[in-house]
């Protein structure tokens, strides 16, 4: 908080400092509208700095109102692992994030990924789709993108910190009712199709992420998993259109109502999240090392 007020004071003092801070803050803010390059700072000859990432920053808004987002792979799992291991991995992750901009996205957002591919013409291939799952911790964090191309469903699992990834763009930033959309495999294809010529949809960097409350219609059973069972806790399926009330009641037999009282499964990550968020923000705001 003190850092924010200090930064606010600097913003009041000089516009140039504001511009510098904007350029530093671009790393953990994500939008997709292009903005003309502001032009180099006149005067002192500096070493080459990469061009600023395309970002919309509302100059009237203070840093305190920006949305705080910590990518879920920074949060360590609940295991008996020495925290030093996570600290060293976090350093590597931050180093990689300074080179490749990994934007904020959630399960349900539409992403486009450009990856190095030695067998493709132009040596890169670009794939876009809905993010249906985010998994893994630390450097091995992954996300799965799903799309339907020429009638064939395609899912690709990308590793976020792989050096072959060259660009990650968020075309549409939104959340869904669940944080795992694997049921789209058994849903009607219209819900998994993403138009390949889709233009990026602008989104704001403040306030809450829009939640897409669509509930998906499913293909007839059998499904790959019994999504009606309470262990998957799926909110985004129109069960009333595909299952009778007796079947839904029968599925509730697999409910485990005691699990919410299981104290060994409690894992409060709020303190860890705050600490890591502050660490990531301070490290990212430091300029690229010489």
């Amino acid at each position, binding site marked *: 908080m003190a850092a924010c007020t200090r930064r606010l004071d600097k913003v009041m003092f000089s516009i140039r400092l504001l511009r510098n801070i904007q350029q530093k803050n671009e790393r953990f803010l994500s939008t997709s509208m292009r903005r003309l390059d502001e032009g180099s700072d006149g005067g002192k000859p500096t070493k080459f700095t990469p061009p600023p990432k395309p970002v919309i920053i509302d100059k009237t808004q203070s840093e305190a109102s920006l949305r705080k987002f910590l990518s879920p792979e920074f949060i360590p799992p609940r295991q008996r692992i020495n925290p030093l291991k996570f600290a060293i991995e976090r350093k590597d992750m931050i180093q990689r994030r300074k080179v490749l901009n990994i934007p904020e996205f959630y399960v349900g957002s539409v992403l486009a990924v450009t990856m190095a591919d030695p067998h493709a013409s132009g040596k890169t291939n670009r794939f876009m789709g809905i993010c249906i799952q985010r998994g893994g911790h630390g450097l091995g964090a992954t996300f799965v993108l799903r799309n339907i191309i020429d009638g064939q469903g395609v899912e690709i699992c990308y590793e976020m*910190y792989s050096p072959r990834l060259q660009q990650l763009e968020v075309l549409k930033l939104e959340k869904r009712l669940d944080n795992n959309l694997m049921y789209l495999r058994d849903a009607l294809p219209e819900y998994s199709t993403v138009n390949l010529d889709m233009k990026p949809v602008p989104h704001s960097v403040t306030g809450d992420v829009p939640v897409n409350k669509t509930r998906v219609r499913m293909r007839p059973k059998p499904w790959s998993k019994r999504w009606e069972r309470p262990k998957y806790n799926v909110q985004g399926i129109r069960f009333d259109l595909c299952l009778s009330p007796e079947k839904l009641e029968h599925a509730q037999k697999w409910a485990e109502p005691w699990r919410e009282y299981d104290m060994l499964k409690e894992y409060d990550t709020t303190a860890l999240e705050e600490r890591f968020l502050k660490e990531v923000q301070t490290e990212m705001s430091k300029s690229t090392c010489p």
Partner: protein
Amino acid sequence: MAAWTCRFLLYRGARVLAGRTGAVAAADSCLFQSVRTVKTTTWWEEHLTEDNKSYMRKSLGEEYNRQIAAKLHPLKDEPWPRQEWTKESRRVGLVAVKLGMAPVWTKTGERHVVTMLQVQDCHVLNYLSKEEYDGHTAALMVGGKNASPFYKSDEEMEMFRLAGVPPKQKVTTFKVSDNAIIKPGTPLYAAHFRPGQYVDVTAKTIGKGFQGVMKRYGFKGQPASHGQTKTHRRPGASGPGGDPAKVFKGKKMPGMMGNVFDTAHGLKVWRVNTRYNVIYVHGSVPGHKNCLLKVRDTNLPTYVEKNINPPFPTFFCEEDEQLPEDLYDEDLFIHTQPSLTL
């Protein structure tokens, strides 16, 4: 090391009485109480007051820091003569702690997994000459990861006292050639191994308890259906038949699995972090997370030429040039580099 036994008694009667009389006793809430039956041995804090206990713990920590600080500059402390590395010389190894695993990528985009091993407070404890050890090679005893002296016997503590280091959790012996001996008390660091070298890692495997023959030796078992009567995971036949008319010694049968020492050979060192003393070693190593391992140069003949000209007899922090915080193998992709364009 007080090995006392206790009896667990059920105090149901006392509880009912207390309820009737209305008096509330402090130890009333638990039905079980333990009663100490063997009273000959004692543990270190049994007869101490609270402030004495905290004083002992505090002075222990201070003593450790003093001992480690005294040993920080081995080259100024009458070190034993340093000799040059030759092809036949064998140098000492380290004791490390297994932190966990992580992915790494090469400059060509291939992904490998590495295990991170941290060298915590590793010191050379003792030197055994050729005659003392086995008549053929000299040996050095090395210990890693400080432990509490309160639970070590006097015989164990004698070696640590002579070397002037805090007591260690794991003490191992490394066979060394005569030109690689080091004075006891010298600290050993992760920079003893450099990226590109190959190591062998020995540790106790995770104990699985008493296991059947399918898990222990990978037997195929029997089919699940088609008339099998009560036989799905059994070993089946146990030998030839009437001619030997016996079961040979060493027949694979169910038994205790794991919790034995196993070595992973020929593991490449990808990266060394000199600030936290972490070695990144290729693939997986035996043992659970936070277990203690023994790391030494490979014996495999195929990697002999990768291990030439190592820091000999070990890496001395003060004398050798200031190493950068991270040492990387030449094939390794460092995350500060730009993304790969294959």
